[in-house]
């Protein structure tokens, strides 16, 4: 009889414990109701650090540099958000997430913002329950092969193997494009890990590997013999990459959106981390408003009024970020990723 009671007690205990662990998930998310008061913006401010979901495996976007820190354009976007909120770009917890788990991580509130070279698509914006911030990198899908393979166009891939990352738009584009090209018999080798994927490609498991062109260029640079590989002259799709937050929280979404636009607008104004101090006495009302010297644009979205100058001070403008992470290391032209005034697609709505 004693025994019976004891086992009931342990059972009870185990259920109490499982209730605790089960309750962990809602604590992060249940406060979010859509109005500003219960927004993730408040959660992040209260926590004092930003949890940012990144890739971690793509040089130029997010990769560990020689100093042992994450660097890249995706990482700098996270830093910009932390700089705006806390005036300290180091108050970030980076969470590397795989392509497969990234949306679940956002849905479940595991990460505050996903800055992980993620393509903006209608399906992800609606059915998947995401909200996409402004595009920070206009990319297109490419195909890399070994020079020795003799493959010069997609049609040559009949009967060949193609390495592709699982759970990406790349995987779907590949299927679409091959159908269009009439290549019926190709064999996708699907991995959910970039390092494993490019290792398999290098060992000759597949004749070609497909991904965003910027990523292929970056990855090519860290192959053991970069010169033996070449990007085919095709752009298979549109890949606008940008930050992602969960649906139904407009306060947080607005903050992420305008922090991103700040980077673009700063470049348009010509404000850099170097010359920021010279603008403090600027008479241009647009710049004064932008830097929080006049009016209270920041307050309206529950950010500090000087959020723009904080961002520029710590992270720089878009042009600086691009040059630092992509332009200099990989000699990739800005093309579409230039300001609209320079023939590119980057355009910020007015800060007023």
């Amino acid at each position, binding site marked *: 009889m004693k025994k019976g009671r004891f086992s009931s007690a342990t059972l009870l205990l185990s259920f109490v414990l499982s209730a605790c662990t089960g309750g962990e998930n809602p604590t992060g998310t249940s406060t979010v109701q859509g109005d500003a008061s219960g927004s993730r913006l408040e959660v992040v401010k209260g926590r004092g650090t930003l949890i940012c979901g990144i890739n971690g495996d793509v040089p130029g976007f997010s990769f560990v540099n020689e100093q042992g820190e994450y660097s890249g354009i995706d990482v700098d976007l996270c830093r910009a958000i932390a700089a705006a909120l806390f005036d300290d770009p180091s108050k970030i917890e980076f969470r590397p997430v795989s392509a497969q788990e990234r949306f679940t991580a956002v849905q479940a509130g595991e990460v505050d913002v996903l800055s992980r070279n993620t393509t903006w698509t209608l399906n992800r914006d609606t059915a998947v329950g995401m909200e996409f911030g402004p595009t920070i990198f206009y990319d297109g899908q490419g195909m890399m092969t070994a020079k020795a393979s003799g493959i010069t166009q997609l049609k040559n891939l009949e009967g060949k193997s193609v390495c592709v990352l699982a759970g990406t738009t790349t995987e779907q584009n590949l299927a679409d494009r091959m159908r269009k090209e009439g290549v019926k018999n190709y064999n996708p080798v699907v991995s959910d890990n970039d390092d494993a994927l490019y290792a398999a490609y290098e060992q000759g*498991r597949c004749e070609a590997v497909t991904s965003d062109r910027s990523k292929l260029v970056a990855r090519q640079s860290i192959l053991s013999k970069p010169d033996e590989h070449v990007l085919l002259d095709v752009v298979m799709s549109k890949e606008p990459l940008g930050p992602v937050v969960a649906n139904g929280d407009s306060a947080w979404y607005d903050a992420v959106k305008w922090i991103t636009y700040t980077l673009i607008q700063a470049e348009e104004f010509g404000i850099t981390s170097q010359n920021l101090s010279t603008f403090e006495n600027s008479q241009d009302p647009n710049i004064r408003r932008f830097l929080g010297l006049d009016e209270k644009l920041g307050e309206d979205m529950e950010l500090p009024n000087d959020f723009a100058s904080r961002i520029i001070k710590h992270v720089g403008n878009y042009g600086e970020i691009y040059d630092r992470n992509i332009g200099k290391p990989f000699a990739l032209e800005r093309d579409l990723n230039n300001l609209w005034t320079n023939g590119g697609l980057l355009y910020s709505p007015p800060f007023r």
Partner: protein
Amino acid sequence: MTNEEKIPFWRDDRFWKVVIQVIVVAIVVAVFIFLGSNLVRNFQRLRLNFGFGFLVDRDRPASFQIGDSPIPYSATDPYSRAILVGLLNSLRVMVSGIVLATIVGITVGIGRLSDNWLVRQIATVYVETIRNTPLLLQLFFWYFAVFLRLPKIDNPVIFLNSIFLTNRGIYLPFPAGSLQTWLSLGFLVLSGVLAAILWRRQTQVIVRGGASGRTLQMGLLGIAIAAILTIIFGLDWQQPQLDRAANSLEGGLNLSPELATLLVGLTIYTAAFIAEVVRAGIQSVDRGQWEAARALGLKSGLVMRLVIFPQALRVMIPPLTSEFLNLAKNSSLAVAIGYSDVYAVSNTISNQTGKAVEMLLVVMITYLSFNLIIASLMNWFNRSVQLKER
């Protein structure tokens, strides 16, 4: 009796037993209601709908290709078809893995008890190395260090002019699937049944009658020769053909590196555990049984087959069942090496559609039903070898 009626209810043991059970049930229900409502609230917050309709919707093609597919599949098929491909991929690894692991496991297990020093040492080193390293590590080893290191397809390793090893996969001869193949298969099944009957009869004759059973042995030999001839010539084997111009191999059976890795990795890993189960089972049979069987004049092969193994089997089956279930579950590690099993495919689908909860349920139900089937088959087998006490 009269004393007991005076005990107040809070000191009555029976009362508390009931109360505790009620509390436990209430807490369980409360936890599930809490988790369920939390799920619903979060679905509403993210404006997502719960439902499985997208799986069969013809207007929502999967739009991703699957490398390894035992059935025809294209990117325009609905998601349910993709899941079916994943299921079949999982099943073929599980079934062939269980069969192979059992064969290797029993061999190694008996090897660990061998009188031969070298055999014993080899078996011990195998079991101890494999059992004590993580399976994921072993899979990466097989994939990156073995199968991807095979020569490229333009320069394959060729055995007997019919087995081709390349880093694009292992190409083996395979029956063509023609009428001749099926007729031969039918013949093989028939001769197998006949051989089993004859074998049993022979054992009976030897054990009960003390006769040599020579005539029956000749019959068995005849069946064996006929079967071997059928296997070699009757099955209509298709050899892989190397096309040097196109750098490709056509025909026969192609085991992709991913499938080969998973199959070999799971087999080698699980066999080490099965070997230990077999060894423990055999050692659990009392020494006296060996001595008694030998005293009756049985040859050592017959001692093992008729006396020791049937008794060992009773001990072995329950732990063996666990190993089979482990193999089935471990097959989900396929996702790490890019083999499209049901878990990998569901992962991709959940990522594309955002239906994470639904796909998680699908995967859980799949593995649960796989394992319940394996468990019930093994339980049935277990009952059939137990001592029938009358």
